[in-house]
């Protein structure tokens, strides 16, 4: 398979098997792009999420565009973006007529209730994995605690905490020089 074909398959799979969008998609991004294909490393994936949070548009799509560009330049970005969107396009348009009634079917509702709880476990597991590889220094652990407080107690927005962390990192570097 050509490189573009592989990019297409990876991102199509991510689009097809993730529910809930955004951070719920992170476990599959990591499995496909970091563990399996080794296109990017753990830190790059996190960087793409943090920048994808601050650039306009849908975060998961932004991460796909970033990764596609990293692998194969502009055309890699286009293929990855197209592939991650394709399952949504096909599924929504094929099922639009019956989607409302489908979600009232008890079996479907139970399956989705199961998926919603399963996704929580996957997301929390992701946070633990991050501590093993990407959050290692005392400064980073302190920053994590500080951001948690800003999010839960002060209810700062996602963009605000990312910008705060960036500014603090910049000041710390300038101070240490």
């Amino acid at each position: 398979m050509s490189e573009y074909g592989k990019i297409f398959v990876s991102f199509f799979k991510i689009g097809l098997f993730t529910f809930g969008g955004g951070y719920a998609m992170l476990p599959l991004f990591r499995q496909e792009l970091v563990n399996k294909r080794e296109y990017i490393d753990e830190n790059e994936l996190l960087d793409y999420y943090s920048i994808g949070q601050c650039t306009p548009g849908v975060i998961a799509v932004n991460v796909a565009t970033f990764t596609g560009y990293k692998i194969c330049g502009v055309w890699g970005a286009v293929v990855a973006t197209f592939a991650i969107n394709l399952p949504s396009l096909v599924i929504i348009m094929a099922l639009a007529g019956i989607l409302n009634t489908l979600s009232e079917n008890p079996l479907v509702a139970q399956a989705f209730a199961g998926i919603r709880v399963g996704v929580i476990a996957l997301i929390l597991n992701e946070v633990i994995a991050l501590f093993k590889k990407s959050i290692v220094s005392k400064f980073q652990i302190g920053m994590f605690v500080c951001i948690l407080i800003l999010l839960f107690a002060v209810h700062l927005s996602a963009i605000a905490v990312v910008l705060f962390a960036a500014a603090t990192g910049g000041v710390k570097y300038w101070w240490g020089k």
Partner: protein
Amino acid sequence: MLYGLLFFEFFKIGLFAIGGGMVTIPFLFDLTKKYDWFSAEELTNMIAVSQSTPGPVGVNMATYAGFQTAGITGGLVATFGLVLPSVIIVIWVSKLLNKYAENPWIQAIMSSIRPAVAALILLAGVELCKLSVTDWQSALFATAFFLLVHFYPKSPIFYILLAAVLGIVLKL
């Protein structure tokens, strides 16, 4: 003309909705006031459906809203409009990142941002917990499932399918 308008409106949403899928919702409610494409009630259904079908929520909503308004071409045009601004901006940012990846300033800033993203992920998990873990059965299921995921690492796809099956078997 309708297609042009759809493209323009969703391009605007793609350009100004910073922070992901959920941020597009207020923009979509504005559309219900401005045009008679879909009602606020239909939009509420679309949000529920978009969260339970695979893929990014923002993309699902654009496809659904576009499809409701103008059929298959409408779905394609709205999704293309939503995604286009971010593709252009992200490619541009990627070029800058490649150029300055070795810059110590950028490295210091990125390593400081990573813990923030980890905290955001934790927040997303907690928010989902509040919505879905509502009684002792679901709390038990969530805890057991977490231990399984943590100690027997397998593909997330496997675990999502397993969670769906368990949801049916346990009648969640």
